[in-house]
């Protein structure tokens, strides 16, 4: 056997000069040979720490072993025992903060961890190319409604269908997937992949009803009456605005609007698709998370000359994935560290012309453990901009919650649910994902979905037994 490489097997990518003009996927995936080479780096630990750090506890050494042996079908078999969305997770999970962070190989100084995410993606993409036979299970164990078709809801629905439940997903938008569809851009997560994985979940016998806004089109009371249990996974999709002067100028967007226009509505293909998205020359994106990266890189692809990210802390505190940060730098995105906008300036006709910012310095750590940014007086500076995109986080959408006042919320306005059991204040109503935790990651939402599926199964079985007694 060849000597174990210190570094991860590199994955081919589109060159930055080319990819910054298109929306095609940046990372091109491993070949089988590359995958086997990478798989052979895995130490096959007995008490593998990577498993514990995966929110859905995939048997990571198990599927990697199968790849090393060249048995892709076995590798997929192992993966699908734990996850319904491996092609998505392999691409968008922050593995450096999860499975790969604790990889024993990576803990030794010389070595990079095993590229678990890239291997997961390899298997999942392989599987999506294979003919698929849905094996519908009998669906007489009970009826469950899942509200919201993002990663959390899809996971619950898939797991419950496998357990023999009759599951209906209600989705407000015209396409399922939640943030996978409207938020994460094509160049990071191709919509074809999202669709294929969702189609496989649906093929297990899940009913999907799009264009249903629960609270409006149907009420929670109707759902509670009609189903044995329900799972609320509506996410944290309501954008926040800083509320500084000029927020309503033309050219100022929430990242949610910008990305929804681009991704869900195919704004980047206007006028073939009807929804326009602003053509910009100078773009300022405010924030430092993955959403900010996605917005900035999308703006670049839409033809903007200069795209800057304004972040109030420094690179060290940047919440975005390292990989995405690197990609953005390669694509020519500029960074203004330790900066915060204080005003949007206009041209006298209601159009944005510049963003006025302040320089910050870092003080004592705050509750989150990150050093708190403090304004440096007199440090104003101006960045010319015809487009500004605020990517400073999202909150709970009140559309459903307002119509269902019986449900207990926490002080941040999210659903007060037990994270261990996904139980809410109302029996039979479970909740998980971002609507409980606030905006987090795809894989955490899936982890909650897995827990919810088990808890809902137990709850329904218990209720049915009690009814028999």
């Amino acid at each position, binding site marked *: 056997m060849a000597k174990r490489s210190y570094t991860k097997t590199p994955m081919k990518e589109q060159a930055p000069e080319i990819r910054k003009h298109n929306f095609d996927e940046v990372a091109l995936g491993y070949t089988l040979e590359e995958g086997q080479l990478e798989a052979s780096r895995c130490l096959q630990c007995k008490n593998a720490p990577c498993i514990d750090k995966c929110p859905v506890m995939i048997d990571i050494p198990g599927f990697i072993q199968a790849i090393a042996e060249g048995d892709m079908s076995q590798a997929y078999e192992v993966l699908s025992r734990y996850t319904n969305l491996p092609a998505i997770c392999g691409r968008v999970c922050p593995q450096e903060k999860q499975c790969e962070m604790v990889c024993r190989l990576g803990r030794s100084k010389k070595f990079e961890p095993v590229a678990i995410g890239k291997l997961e993606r390899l298997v999942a993409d392989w599987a999506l190319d294979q003919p698929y036979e849905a094996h519908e299970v009998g669906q007489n164990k009970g009826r469950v409604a899942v509200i919201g078709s993002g990663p959390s809801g899809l996971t619950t629905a898939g797991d419950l269908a496998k357990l023999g439940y009759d599951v209906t997903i209600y989705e407000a938008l015209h396409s399922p997937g939640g943030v996978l569809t409207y938020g994460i851009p094509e160049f990071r997560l191709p919509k074809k992949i999202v669709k294929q994985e969702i189609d496989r979940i649906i093929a297990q016998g899940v009913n999907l009803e*799009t264009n249903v806004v629960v609270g409006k*089109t149907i009420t929670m009371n109707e759902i509670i009456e009609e189903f044995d249990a329900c799972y609320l996974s509506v996410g944290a999709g309501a954008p926040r605005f800083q509320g500084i002067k000029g927020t309503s100028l033309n050219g100022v967007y929430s990242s949610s609007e910008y990305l929804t226009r681009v991704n869900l509505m195919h704004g980047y293909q206007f006028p073939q698709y009807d929804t326009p998205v602003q053509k910009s020359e100078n773009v300022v994106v405010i924030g430092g998370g993955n959403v900010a990266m996605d917005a900035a890189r999308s703006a670049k692809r839409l033809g903007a000359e200069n795209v800057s990210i304004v972040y109030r802390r420094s690179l060290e505190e940047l919440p975005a994935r390292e990989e995405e940060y690197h990609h953005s730098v390669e694509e020519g995105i500029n960074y203004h560290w330790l900066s915060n906008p204080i005003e949007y300036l206009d041209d006298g006709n209601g159009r944005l012309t510049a963003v006025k910012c302040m320089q910050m310095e870092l003080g004592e750590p705050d509750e989150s453990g990150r050093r708190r940014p403090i304004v440096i007086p007199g440090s104003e500076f101006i960045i010319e901009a015809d487009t500004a995109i605020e990517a400073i986080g999202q909150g709970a959408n009140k559309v459903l919650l307002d119509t269902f006042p019986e449900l207990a919320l926490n002080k941040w306005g999210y659903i007060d649910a037990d994270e261990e059991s996904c139980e809410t204040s109302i029996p039979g109503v479970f909740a998980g994902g971002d609507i409980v935790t606030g905006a987090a990651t795809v894989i955490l939402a899936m982890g909650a979905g897995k827990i919810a599926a088990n808890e809902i199964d137990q709850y329904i079985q218990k209720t049915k037994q009690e009814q028999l007694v």
Partner: protein
Amino acid sequence: MFKVLERKELAPTEFEILVDAPRIAKKAKAGQFVILRIDEYGERIPLTVVDTDTEAGWVRLIFQVIGKTTAQLATVRAGEALRYIVGPLGKATDIENYGTVLLVGGGVGIAALFPIVKALKEAGNRVITILGAKNAELLILQEDCAKYSDELILMTDDGSIGQKGVVTNAMEAVFKREEVVMTWAIGPSIMMKFCTLTAQKYNTPIYVSLNPIMIDGTGMCGGCRVTVADSIKFACVDGPEFLGEEVDWDEFVNRMQQYRPEEQLSNERYEKQVNANG
């Protein structure tokens, strides 16, 4: 898919369709709207629910051809289908028995006004309705509004029906004549702004229904944000009705212009396609 059951031309460039959407028909209340998308390439556009039949399961929508999507919508015939329609969205109008109420509608805004006229009448109010349009031909829903109004006043720019003049002239006359508890105005933004000024002059609360640019219509993006009483509101979930005196009108009008060049491009491209296909 949502089938169009009936289609009628109400006025030059103004159309009415009945769409088969039983769930929406069952839930929609006065003041609410839907978002529809004609096909897979389409954009999502908001339209007020003008009327419903819960038994037959349809919703009645009225629109004016002002750009690409509405032009395309005007070509959809009875028996054909719309790809998506979602709703009812937005907050419903607060309907109660206030006493004497004044309702003002202008242009295609009359379509959005009518369900409120009807609901207020059914709640026992004395309803005075003012409808305004450029000319008699463009004045829609006159009979429907008459049916649910104790008094109906018609205003046209050219005097071809009713009185010659603008709706605020008629409002002044009513306010001078009697005590009005509540007022609603729906129409072009400039009309709603002047209705607001008129109502303020007579110390009467006035509601307006805002129609900003929307995408999802469910509070997810803030594209439809408006400044109301100095704070940011999303018209799709916090509205579309707001107190007129609290609306920042200049900002609202400005934000409506945001995509004019793109709208024009899209429309020209569509017209070319239509012409090419004969």
